[in-house]
């Protein structure tokens, strides 16, 4: 299928460019680790309080890092108007969206192997291997939920002057369900799930991702055409 093939080629292109510019990935990684540290300073060396808030801090670190990576994902396209070049080839705008969104999700997913251990250590949480895997799965769902509307908004705001303020302003209220869902779900993994609620939160996260991956794919062509 044409659209799928084009999307995968674009993911490959973005991954190659990310690898070439990997100092940026490392910077975002360090940024996330610093925020995790700052959160613990804000609460104080109270391991009970830290453990209770661990899931929240982890998700917030993900959210803050995502604004950096999302805005960056379109800055590259702006440099030589490369996006316009792609669109003229022609690349189906839908393929462009899914290519970018998948790329953004993978980028955020790659942060998990570093953020998670750091958080577990800083906030004194002990976890078995099975639970860590569940955590990574939840991380993937959260990353997917953030990336779909994030890619759409990043495409729009990358053409504007105050991109760095507009992107979070638009994205943060929108992803409240992702924030709540992933914090709740991760907290259940970290602290135990006596009432078996994990499934419903996972369904919420999955539902959000499905809805927004479809909706934003439909709307993306409108976000990148028109005007100069």
């Amino acid at each position, binding site marked *: 299928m044409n659209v799928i093939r084009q999307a995968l080629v674009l993911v490959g292109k973005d991954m190659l460019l990310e690898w070439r510019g990997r100092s940026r990935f490392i910077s975002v990684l360090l940024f996330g680790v610093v925020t995790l540290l700052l959160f613990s300073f804000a609460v104080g060396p109270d391991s009970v309080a830290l453990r209770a808030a661990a899931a929240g801090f982890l998700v917030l670190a993900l959210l803050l890092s995502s604004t950096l990576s999302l805005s960056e994902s379109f800055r590259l396209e702006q440099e030589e108007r490369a996006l316009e070049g792609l669109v003229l080839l022609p690349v189906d705008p839908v393929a462009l969206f899914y290519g970018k969104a998948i790329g953004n999700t993978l980028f955020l997913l790659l942060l998990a192997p570093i953020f998670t251990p750091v958080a577990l250590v800083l906030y004194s949480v002990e976890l078995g291997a099975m639970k860590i895997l569940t955590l990574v799965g939840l991380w993937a769902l959260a990353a997917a939920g953030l990336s779909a509307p994030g890619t759409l908004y990043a495409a729009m705001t990358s053409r504007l002057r105050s991109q760095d303020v507009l992107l979070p302003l638009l994205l943060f209220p*929108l992803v409240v369900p992702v924030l709540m869902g992933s914090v709740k779900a991760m907290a259940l993994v970290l602290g135990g799930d006596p009432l078996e609620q994990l499934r419903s939160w996972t369904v919420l996260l999955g539902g959000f991702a499905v809805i927004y991956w479809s*909706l934003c794919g439909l709307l993306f062509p*409108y*976000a990148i055409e028109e005007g100069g």
Partner: protein
Amino acid sequence: MTRRIFGVRTLGLLGLGLLLVGSYFGLFVAPAERYMGQVQRIMYVHVPCAWIAMVCYTAAFVFAVIGLWNGKPRWDARTTGAIEVGAVLNALLLVQGSIWARATWGVWWDWDVRLTTSLVMLLLFAGVLALRSFVDDSDRRATWTAVATIVAFVDVPLVYFCVRWWRSLHQTQSTPETVSPAMVLPLRLNAIAILLIAIWLIAQRAKLERERLRKEQVDEPARVTAGLEVTDA
């Protein structure tokens, strides 16, 4: 055109009148609620504000979809009007809800499900308005407003369910649902009143937006007229 605005203004005046009547009933005629006393009367504006805010946002969503579909600028003007009026009502209802919570529970904010959802809603749509102010090109502004409105509106039910589950783990205090028959009349009167005022305000705002657009386009640079025909060499 003037006749249409005159018609809408009548609606606005009617709305104001109804608001006075409804408020009279609500403030003086309807019985005081059993447990909360006089403070409960704030419901007579709070509930209609909430209903009509949702109506405004829903209208904005519909206008946005139509606007994306046919690209005529008047739909962007209507979308903007609907969002702004909805946002004002939204802000009002947050203040009213906060006052009610203070009077009833003693706290200014108690994470009530509907109030929390309203706060997120206000931030969502305020963001759309903020986005507008940064886009200079009118076509792009219209398209992006519509896109952002659709995305924001779809989020509202998701946020509501999310907050509800989140809250259900703790206590469930919220605004009372049961209303006695004597209370229904002022509620409905005020709801219709606010709806009429909202329609009037949206129409005014839309007209203002279209005039601003017209002024913008007069200043646009020369366009290309082509009578060119190119065939394969």
